[in-house]
């Protein structure tokens, strides 16, 4: 029976696969990033059809909004014209393709054989429920994630800051 949810899922799934495939084969990073952006939006679409509105919103705001913009910033900082012409970082193209293909086949076989119980979709899944879960059952992971972000800030600061010793040495040279 071809219902609307099934048609929607088929559309999103095909688009996600196609966009992801296109993104990893582009040589131009800007094209790749924009394709990934489109893929993220389609993933948000899948979440919507599953009734996870909050997840869909987070997907748009965090992934499509924040992370992708960050990627674009990085891409802008790189000298694109030179980067596109330069040699690949790792020159094992065919090997990695083979490994990826084997892994894909193994996983596809596994997914085909698996009997997964579909979780109850009528369970409460609003923002309120999510918040309660986050601060009760998942309190510890939530707090650890906070510390991970703190480390990102401290580490980023340490790596990006100009060395005081190195600066004085440079000035002496001048």
């Amino acid at each position, binding site marked *: 029976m071809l219902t609307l949810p099934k048609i929607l899922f088929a559309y999103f799934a095909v688009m996600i696969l196609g966009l992801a495939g296109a993104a990893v084969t582009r040589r131009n990073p800007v094209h790749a990033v924009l394709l990934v952006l489109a893929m993220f939006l389609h993933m948000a679409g899948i979440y919507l059809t599953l009734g996870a509105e909050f997840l869909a919103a987070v997907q748009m705001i965090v992934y499509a909004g924040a992370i992708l913009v960050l990627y674009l910033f990085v891409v802008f900082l790189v000298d694109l014209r030179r980067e596109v012409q330069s040699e690949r970082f790792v020159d094992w193209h065919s090997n990695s393709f083979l490994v990826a293909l084997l892994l894909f086949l*193994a*996983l596809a*076989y*596994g*997914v085909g*054989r*698996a009997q*997964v*119980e579909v*979780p109850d979709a009528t369970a409460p899944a609003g923002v309120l429920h999510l918040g*309660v*879960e986050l*601060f*009760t*059952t*998942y*309190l*510890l*992971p939530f707090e*650890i*994630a906070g*510390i*991970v972000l*703190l*480390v*990102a800030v*401290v*580490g980023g*600061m*340490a*790596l990006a800051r100009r*060395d*005081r*010793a*190195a600066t004085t040495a440079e000035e002496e040279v001048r």
Partner: protein
Amino acid sequence: MAEPFVFDVASLALAAPECFLVALGVLLVCAEFLFPGQRLLLPALTMTGILTTLGLVLAGSAGIGFGGMFQVDGLARFFKVVCLVGTVFTVLLSQRNRQVEGMRHGEYYSLLIFAVTGMLVMASAADLIVVYLGLELMSLSIYCLVGLLKHDLRANEAAMKYFIMGAFASAVLLYGISLVYGLAGTTNLAAVSAQIAGRDAASEPLLLAGIGLLLVGLCFKVGAAPFHQWTPDVYEGAPTAITAFMSVAPKAASFAVLARVMLAGFLPIHEVWAVLVAGIALLTMTVGNVIALSQTSIKRMLAYSSIAHVGYALLGVLAGTEEGLSATMNYLFIYAFMNMGAFAVVILLAEKGQRRESLDDYRGLAASNPMLAALMLLFMFSLTGIPPTAGFIGKFSLLMAAVHAGYTGVVVAAVMLSAVSAYFYLRVVRYMYMDAPAGGKDVGLSAGVAVALGLAMVGVIGLGVAPSALVSLASQAGIGFP
């Protein structure tokens, strides 16, 4: 679905060491810019904090907290002690190493503390989500520590490689976790174990794929072949004190996770994953010992040696028995002492502008500095596994455990490869004692490194002569084997 967890003080008390370390890390960040001139303040604060944490870990009671996500038991406590001992050594070695390599970062110590926090979380993690987050906390801090020598191209390369490969391994691990979650319906290890116990795992390829991906991610973190390729480059490029740290503490924490996930989560299907682990252990020992033969840099040699030692330590996990687990734990504890000792000698030999990391720099060391050469000899003997050093006790109990579990073939290979390893460890000894010195080696002594050397020496000899205390401590750490 478990009962919803409501925050209680008992859970917080269980996690007291971790909470203390987080506070210490934040304090260190603040202290760095409040008292910028104080050179010894940060190491002193760090050392006091680590020792206090060690006390908290040893004094803390066992239990399960945060709704089954956090578990303090013998296993967790033992691995926490190993990680903290490794960190004590690192702090002792850091001052001198930082001076020589010209690194002046207050963030150094706070990142170190955050890395240890991640390790303690990993050791106590009873839930796959907590495992992952602890691992990320640890890894992220270490990526930064490796890259702190910003003006050293080698360090940049090391940090970049470690970061990219590490992020990839984390993604693989997460993929494995998501598959296991999808099939078991829970991320709690005890619940996963109960779920799997009644099933025929061999007929569920997706479950096997999940376990396989988990294993790949963890093997990357411990540096087991064939996921070891990052190790030599990263070890060579990182500041030597951080190399020493990486070869001991993160490995111990990752082994804690490996032991808990494999033995608490997937013990019901031990025979299924044992084949994989046996292959990995065999390959790891071979790759580590054989490639170490051709190294000319002592740091790279010790990197390959650490790969080989991961292979030995995997034998205990492979056995899947109480005896095997406690042998692995013993071994990692002993390994902390002997490896830290060897790295302390490497750090002491380096001078400003002269790395002295080549094996040739050790020629004739016995003539110019007999004391240091004798210590290096001791650590090399222990790494080879020659009695009466601690390395022998550790290796012996691992091999016995694997034999008792019926993996005789793997043990025979391990003994043969161990003989191969004697060549490259004892080559250092031969260079030190039988060759003429090449140039003067005035070694400036540093208090921190001297204490580290003394501690390592006491550990290697003490644990070798009287290992019973350690063995009984480790054997109490069972995680409920059937």
